[in-house]
């Protein structure tokens, strides 16, 4: 069933155009890398604040309000460009370990974010301005940083298998 979907995806006109063109793949890949650097760079700013390493004089909610819209825009660009890259050789990518691991680690990063927003972040008004944050916030920040470094490593690894 899923194999049928992957084959169909590869045979769409867009996927065929990307795999046959000499410049479409590198072009889309450049956009993908650019978007990921902005996703990871902006998320790290928040993570490093949660860890108490950077930007300690800034209230957490203020920093998140300022940075996160840019993270989401960049993430949307990364997902779209990534889907296009994936479509050009879907069965191959789906069969590789780093691709599957990357999707899994990204899901974990999303889950970590959801848990943070549903629990610790609810009380941000009480602790958001302090320099040293509650342990739960520090753990979320550290996990997020580690998971996104994992996403970049696995993403780079996809190109070598």
């Amino acid at each position, binding site marked *: 069933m899923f194999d049928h979907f992957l084959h169909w995806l590869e045979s769409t006109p867009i996927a065929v155009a990307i795999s046959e063109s000499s410049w479409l793949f590198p072009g889309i890949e450049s956009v993908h890398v650019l978007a990921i*650097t*902005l996703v990871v760079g902006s998320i790290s700013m928040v993570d490093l604040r949660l860890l108490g390493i950077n930007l300690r004089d800034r209230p957490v909610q203020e920093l998140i309000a300022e940075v996160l819209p840019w993270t989401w825009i960049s993430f949307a660009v990364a997902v779209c460009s990534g889907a296009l890259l994936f479509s050009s050789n879907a069965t191959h990518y789906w069969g590789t370990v780093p691709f599957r691991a990357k999707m899994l680690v990204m899901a974990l990063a999303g889950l970590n974010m959801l848990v943070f927003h549903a629990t610790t972040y609810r009380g941000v008004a009480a602790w958001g301005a302090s320099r040293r944050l509650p342990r739960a916030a520090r753990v979320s920040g550290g996990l997020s940083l580690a998971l996104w470094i994992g996403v970049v490593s696995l993403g780079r690894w996809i190109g070598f298998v």
Partner: protein
Amino acid sequence: MLDEFNTWLGATPLSLLIQKVLWIIPTVQTVHILAISAVLASMAMFDLRLLGLVGTRHSIVSLSRRFMPWLWGSLIVLAVSGSILIIGEPKRALGNSVFLAKMCLLAAAILLTLGFQIILKRDLAGGNTDLASPHFAAAKIVGLLSLVLWVGIAVAGRLIAYTG
């Protein structure tokens, strides 16, 4: 001349080690990309502030003090990781026109940043609390140019893999 240098560099023990141990290049590339993330995110925030689009309630000098250490620190990481990649695959980079273009863009971005820092320092030394208002127009041009240069550097970096 360059070919001979590349052949010599590619035959050094360090280069042979990087070529032989399969995980070195992907790992160093990952470190390189992470450092680029720090540069691009920091410079995007700073440049968008110079353009007056984001974070206008923060002074330019406070954002400069916040982000410039990340820029210079990351550039050191980028120089070291980039050098390892060049030593491992000299022909991929040194004989590549896109690599040369990337280095020119990098030099321009660094000079532009240093130039702006000098202007900012002079304004502060002259008794201003932030960038002086006669320099606001120049700051917008610097912000836009800097954004374009850093995006160009990242794109050129990825395209090195596809060009000769």
